[in-house]
């Protein structure tokens, strides 16, 4: 693949960066509509309780209150993420299931009055016994959260690929290991906020801090009963999402109902504590893996058991429990894999999708186990991995097609980039080095709801003067840089400079797009953008060919000019027409070639507005087994990391000193953005490995629902990262591009686990690696005389 690109692969500054560094960029809470009211939500103080009575009369009478709504007012339409598990209603009726469950909402002339009104709502509860751990929830006779889910089992998965039992008998070496992770919070810096605006004609516009305008539009329409066509969701700038902002929230739906009831715009925002209470972030996972290998290190069989603490509702959890299993199918050849997964309801905030959805803790458990196996059979951990990795074209036992896979290149790059050979096994006590690999989907191959819909459409419209084009897309830039990606792809395809491309995005009125989740937008929105640009190019060149009387096959656009193969026709008459139209203008087109501006203007004059449309949906992919949709993707990104740590042998404190990271993202679109995703993934992984845990008291209340008590990495916790980009060519990606946003987090936790072992000689099977936990493990090991 030697095609030369003029825009792709460069370090283009992000389109929104100038507005973000000057404070001009507007986030949902920055929006103020004339006459707006302020909303607030009343949440349950109990983890599990019957609602005997709700009295809102005093709240309604408070001066300045414009509306108070409860389940009685908004109805009991069930919603959620997967249609098969719609288990939420906007407001609790009959009972509440976690501390924070929504009971009522108010709208008032200011926020103070709204909060005062919440205090006046009297709710009579009758407390019920609650379950706070998976063990308690699964205990025979445990109180049920949802009467239609016996034993509090939200979802169960049983899959087998190959013949696990028989394969185990063929193994020379078998071992079982466990890993327990902790519930996390996504800790995006912008708390959710929104403004709902229901107008006099019955149209509802919701401005919201969301990753998925399309899904929010559908859920809001379903729950409010408005036709989908009357609901418009607009995403302003979003201050990070990482998964939990990928579903409709009670905040959004409350604001919508309150606006519909009052006829005025209603603004609402979660406090930081409410972000923790709403959660929808990373589950707590309990993994147990039995892996069998041959004498020579060939990985042969895996039995994986996982239990997920889901919290009170399903959210994305059905996908999570499937992902936890399916994402072990690669990047190593593994012919026999058995998976038993279970997601359990508990009386805590619901967990959902978070960066590396479902696969992160499982990957940590497996990669640590591979390290243990390597040591026990006397192989270098890098060699063990190199021996087993898949190649481009391999298909996993669960039918994931590695249509491009630079796994070997990634491993070799980090091995060489970190001086692994000189360091592994040779560092002094207290210093350690560890490595791990991982891979992730480049867009879910199926939408959340069953449909043959296109996953992405893009419209490119040429400005009347021909000087610029605007790409309209419903896709969601939440900071990762997808708008810039769209601009770069349109510019590349149209043969014009990026400065001539504008992007209007994040609006359900612009186009159909499933949004920012499962690392899908570069591949899917990118495809649709390329397709739309191609359409525009075709329309413009057809007019030019006609005017010049040359075959259209001889024409192309590059560097903002119309290139003509073979003998050049006289372009002067066309130029004269353009110049006559633009008397007094300073920037008269020059040069021997017709400019894009002239060509586009010519086409507009001939045919009216030039609008190109593009669309993308993946072909039918994946296996036929139950749950095959989860993990199936048109492409997979992969990565390898090597981490170096220092462990204070007196205190157990772990410091990460260096990280070397290689990721295969296919063709690079924006080099700076790829590195940004890689480095951001590593910091989130480092936080999960060393610091992060949402803690509860004995009554289901969060103990550390603040950014002071819930610790995420600061600039002093992150070492300098060496980021190495590996470029493969992905046949299913636009120009060969695929994901980077989530695959890059996969190896981080296990690489740290393996480095800590190298430094201390102690294996840890519980996260996070706090000083206390590491110290305890070292002390225990000493007692055992190891």
């Amino acid at each position, binding site marked *: 693949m030697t095609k030369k690109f003029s825009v792709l692969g460069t*370090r283009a*500054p*992000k389109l*929104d*960066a*100038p507005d*973000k*560094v*000057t*404070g*001009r*960029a*507007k*986030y949902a*809470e*920055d929006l103020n509509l004339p006459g707006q009211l302020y909303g607030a939500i009343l949440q349950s103080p109990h983890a599990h309780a019957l609602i005997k009575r709700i009295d809102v009369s005093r709240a309604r009478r408070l001066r300045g209150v414009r509306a108070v709504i409860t389940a009685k007012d908004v109805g009991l339409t069930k919603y959620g993420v997967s249609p098969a598990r719609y288990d939420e209603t906007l407001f609790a009726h009959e009972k509440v299931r976690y501390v924070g469950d929504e009971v009522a909402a108010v709208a008032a002339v200011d926020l103070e009055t709204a909060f005062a009104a919440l205090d006046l709502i009297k709710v009579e509860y009758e407390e019920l016994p609650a379950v706070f751990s998976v063990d308690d929830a699964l205990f025979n006779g445990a109180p049920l959260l949802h009467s239609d889910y016996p034993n509090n089992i939200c979802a169960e998965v049983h899959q087998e690929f190959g013949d696990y039992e028989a394969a185990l008998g063929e193994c020379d070496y078998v071992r079982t290991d466990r890993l327990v992770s902790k519930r996390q919070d*996504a*800790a*995006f*810096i*912008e*708390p959710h906020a929104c403004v709902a605006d229901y107008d006099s004609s019955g149209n509802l516009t919701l401005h919201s801090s969301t990753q998925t305008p399309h899904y929010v539009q559908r859920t809001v329409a379903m729950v409010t009963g408005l036709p989908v066509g009357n609901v418009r969701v607009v995403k302003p*700038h*979003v*201050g*990070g999402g*990482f998964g939990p902002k990928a579903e409709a929230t009670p905040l959004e739906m409350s604001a919508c109902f309150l606006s519909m009831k009052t006829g005025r715009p209603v603004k609402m*925002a979660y*406090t*930081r504590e409410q972000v923790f209470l709403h959660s929808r972030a990373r589950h707590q996972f309990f993994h147990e893996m039995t892996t069998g290998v041959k004498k020579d290190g060939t990985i042969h069989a895996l039995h994986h058991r996982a239990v997920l603490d889901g919290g009170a509702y399903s959210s994305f959890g059905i996908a999570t429990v499937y992902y936890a299993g399916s994402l072990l199918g690669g990047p190593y050849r593994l012919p026999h894999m058995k998976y038993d997964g279970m997601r359990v309801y508990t009386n805590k905030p619901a967990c959902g999708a978070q960066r590396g959805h479902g696969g992160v803790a499982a990957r940590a458990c497996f990669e640590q186990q591979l390290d243990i196996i390597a040591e026990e059979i006397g192989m270098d951990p890098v060699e063990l991995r190199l021996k087993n990795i898949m190649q481009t074209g391999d298909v996993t036992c669960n039918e994931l097609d590695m249509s491009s896979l630079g796994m070997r290149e990634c491993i070799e790059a980090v091995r060489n980039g970190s001086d692994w050979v000189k360091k592994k096994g040779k560092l002094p006590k207290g210093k350690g080095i560890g490595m791990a690999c991982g891979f992730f989907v480049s867009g879910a191959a199926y939408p959340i709801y069953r449909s043959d819909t296109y996953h992405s459409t893009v419209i490119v419209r040429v400005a009347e003067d021909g000087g610029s084009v605007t790409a309209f897309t419903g896709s969601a830039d*939440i*900071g*990762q*840089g997808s708008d810039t990606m769209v601009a770069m792809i349109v510019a590349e395809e149209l043969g014009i400079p990026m400065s001539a491309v504008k992007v209007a995005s994040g609006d359900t009125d612009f186009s159909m797009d499933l949004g920012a989740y499962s690392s899908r937008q570069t591949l899917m929105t990118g495809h649709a953008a390329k397709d739309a640009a191609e359409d525009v190019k075709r329309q413009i060149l057809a007019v030019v060919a006609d005017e010049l009387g040359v075959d259209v096959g001889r024409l192309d656009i590059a560097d903002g000019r119309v290139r003509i193969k073979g003998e050049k026709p006289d372009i002067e008459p066309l130029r004269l027409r353009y110049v006559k139209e633009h008397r007094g203008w300073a920037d008269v087109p020059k040069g021997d070639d017709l400019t894009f501006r002239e060509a586009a203007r010519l086409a507009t004059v001939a045919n009216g507005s030039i609008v190109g449309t593009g669309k993308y949906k993946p072909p039918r992919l994946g296996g036929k087994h139950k749950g095959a949709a989860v993990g199936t993707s048109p492409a997979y990104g992969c990565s390898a990391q090597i981490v170096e740590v220092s462990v204070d042998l007196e205190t157990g404190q772990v410091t990460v000193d260096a990280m070397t990271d290689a990721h295969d993202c296919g063709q690079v679109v924006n080099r*700076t*953005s790829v*590195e*940004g995703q890689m*480095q*951001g*993934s*590593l*910091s*989130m992984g480092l936080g999960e490995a060393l610091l992060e845990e949402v803690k509860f008291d004995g009554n289901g209340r969060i103990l550390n629902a*603040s*950014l*002071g008590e819930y610790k*995420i*990495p*600061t*600039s*002093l916790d*992150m070492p*300098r*990262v060496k980021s190495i980009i590996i470029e493969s060519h992905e046949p299913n990606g636009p120009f060969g591009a695929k994901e980077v946003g989530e695959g890059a987090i996969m190896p981080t936790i296990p690489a740290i686990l393996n480095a800590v072992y190298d430094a201390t000689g102690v294996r840890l099977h519980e996260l996070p690696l706090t000083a206390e936990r590491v110290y305890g493990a070292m002390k225990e090991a000493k007692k055992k005389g190891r």
Partner: protein
Amino acid sequence: MKKLQIFIRVNGEDHELLVAPNRTLTDVLREELDLTGTKHGCDEGECGSCTVLLDGDPVNSCLVLAAQADGRDITTIEGVANGSDLHPVQRAFVDQGAVQCGFCTPGMVLTAKALLDKKKRPTEHEIRAAVSGNLCRCTGYQKIVDAVQAASRGKTGAGR
């Protein structure tokens, strides 16, 4: 609550305001002066997204009562650029890819500007220590550190 009269200078412009004694500087900047570049991230002084410069020093404006700012000079993110010319720190943040979601960016830029105003060529550790009270969940901080370094060296243009 009886309102208090305060005089503050914000981005070089004088304002006379009547504020409730319990209102934070963040809220007054955002709601009275429409300076929404100052963000609400946690409202308890942990995230740094509400950072403004108070007489040149970075502070969490959510922990400052508006009344405490009486008679003081405040710089918000809206006052950093010179018209449409970006400040070197802003320029470097754009060029180096230090901006992702951008929610921490105003606070980061102000903290970095305050650092460079006091120390022309800080070391990498000094930069990391200076911005350690500004949380960023997107970038892993590397490109932010790179941007501050580039700005301190007067470098512009895209780099690593």
